[in-house]
């Protein structure tokens, strides 16, 4: 992919903001439409942010089947940690289009995600590494890795929503 074919930062920002809005509004079925068929979603452990899910115990390492199941569970009534749904608010910043690897567009962005529940606020801080591809109707997510700067999930205790 030549530099001219890379999406502009503004196009990527618009895409990431739209994604953040869908997640904050719990429009998870629509969020799934932003993913490729084979998309993966990962959260590495806080002590091995560069780890590989094949040999390191992650917090989340969803393949396409598990992402879809996760969404189905979160929209059902038995995902107790998210029933009732928590409120979340995502701040996406420092978006950079790093380049391309074949068809994959490499993007990074910082995040601060606030989760509100039972009148306490938990803050998840870190950055995303995305691999995006350009489909017939716009950008799609092929890989989405949320890398936490938090040194532990404390006092959060869990990642029960889509980070």
């Amino acid at each position, binding site marked *: 992919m030549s530099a001219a074919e890379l999406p502009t930062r503004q196009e990527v920002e618009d895409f990431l903001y739209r994604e953040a809005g869908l997640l904050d509004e719990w429009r998870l079925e629509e969020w799934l439409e932003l993913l490729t068929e084979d998309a993966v979603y990962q959260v590495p452990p806080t*002590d*091995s942010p560069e780890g590989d899910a094949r*040999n390191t*115990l992650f917090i989340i390492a969803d*393949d396409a089947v598990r992402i879809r199941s996760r969404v189905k569970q979160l929209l059902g009534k038995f995902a107790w940690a998210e029933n009732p749904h928590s409120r979340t608010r995502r701040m996406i910043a420092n978006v950079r289009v790093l380049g391309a690897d074949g068809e994959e567009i490499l993007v990074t962005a910082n995040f601060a995600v606030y989760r509100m529940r039972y009148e306490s606020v938990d803050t998840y801080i870190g950055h995303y590494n995305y691999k995006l591809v350009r489909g017939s109707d716009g950008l799609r997510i092929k890989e989405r890795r949320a890398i936490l700067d938090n040194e532990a999930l404390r006092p959060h*205790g869990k990642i029960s929503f889509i980070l």
Partner: protein
Amino acid sequence: MDSAAELFVIDDQDAGIFRVNRRAFTDAECLERERRHVFDRCWIYAGHESEVPHAGDFQSRNVAGRPMILARGDDRIVRVLLNTCTHRGSLVCRQKSGNAKSFQCPYHAWTYNSRGQLIGVPGEDSYSPAFKREEFALAQPAQVDNYRGFIFVCFDPSADTLYDYLAGAKEYLDLVADQSELGMRVVAGVQAYSARANWKLLVENSYDGYHGLPTHQRYFGFLSDIGVEMRGNNLGAPRHQQTVDLGNGHAVLEYQSAWGRPIAHWVPSFGEHRKAHFEELRRRFDERFGAERSRRICETSRNLGVFPNLVINDIMAITIRTFFPLAPDYMEVNAWALAPMDESAEDSALRLDNFLTFLGPGGFATPDDVEMLESCQRGFANREVAWSDISRGMKRERPSVTDELQMRAFWRRWNQLMTEPQAARARKAA
């Protein structure tokens, strides 16, 4: 508190009544007493020898509220060193893990070797002749011992040996340790999380068979979606099941489960291409241990609680989970995955995949467990409702895995330690 301590547990075996006073989960004085009567006297899990495989390897971590260093010395002996300079107190190791020939205190540069001996004191000639380096080695817990790779510490010099302390739990640690001829290893990556709940709620939850279906319906839905056969084979009606009081407060659930087990129990969701390989793994277990023990190792799942705060759940993968209270309503939790040393990269990847479906703070089950514990803790604010009921299956001749025998085993031991006067303890030691 001494007189009130008698009232934490009501245990009427004739009537089949077992109740725990909810102040055991909320009272700050109770936690203070637990620190002295439980955590300072029991054997506490500190780590696994595979976490420091080479001479000079170290891991620093909190164990029972104390910063410690799990260190393999240049003599290859694994030690547990208390992470505080014997001079004026600073941490001498401030890295999470690594390999080091020595630990140098950053404050005044006292230096200790990998065995914890003091080897360097700047300006040592300013000290009097009474100053002896050998009296200033890094301190170690009163007792440290290793059972099949699991390293425990104990701060009570008069406590029973680890071997005796573990009692019946050894049989179940063996069923895990026997899964490899080369030994087991802790996989890279710690799941470091917490819960806004009392630590004993996590003890109860970790081997609570009763909560499986209502709390984890979403997980069983997921299994069903990926084609795992659930009929007559789930936590609600497990086959080959037993609940055992292992002595000294330890207990276990053992049952045949619906999920596949990466050790050698194939299910269709693992893929047809792996079936023959798993059958071969199983055949090797049959050869090593005979059909019955092999079936137990490969097919049955186990939720083991080692008193007071170690959980080893050998279920769809193996997790080591340990936790410690920072407040009556808050605990820190650390969880690791354990795998055979000689497992292939492909099998190991499958194991971690299987682990994450259920376990951990982003899995399809653990977040809901944490939610339930936190929900109980919030409910306890209703002090008018003073007792929790833990009597399920109490009058049954052979309690099932959905009964609460395992929790009663924990609470009886806990109550015994908490109500034993310090004076009696000192006499016994003398």
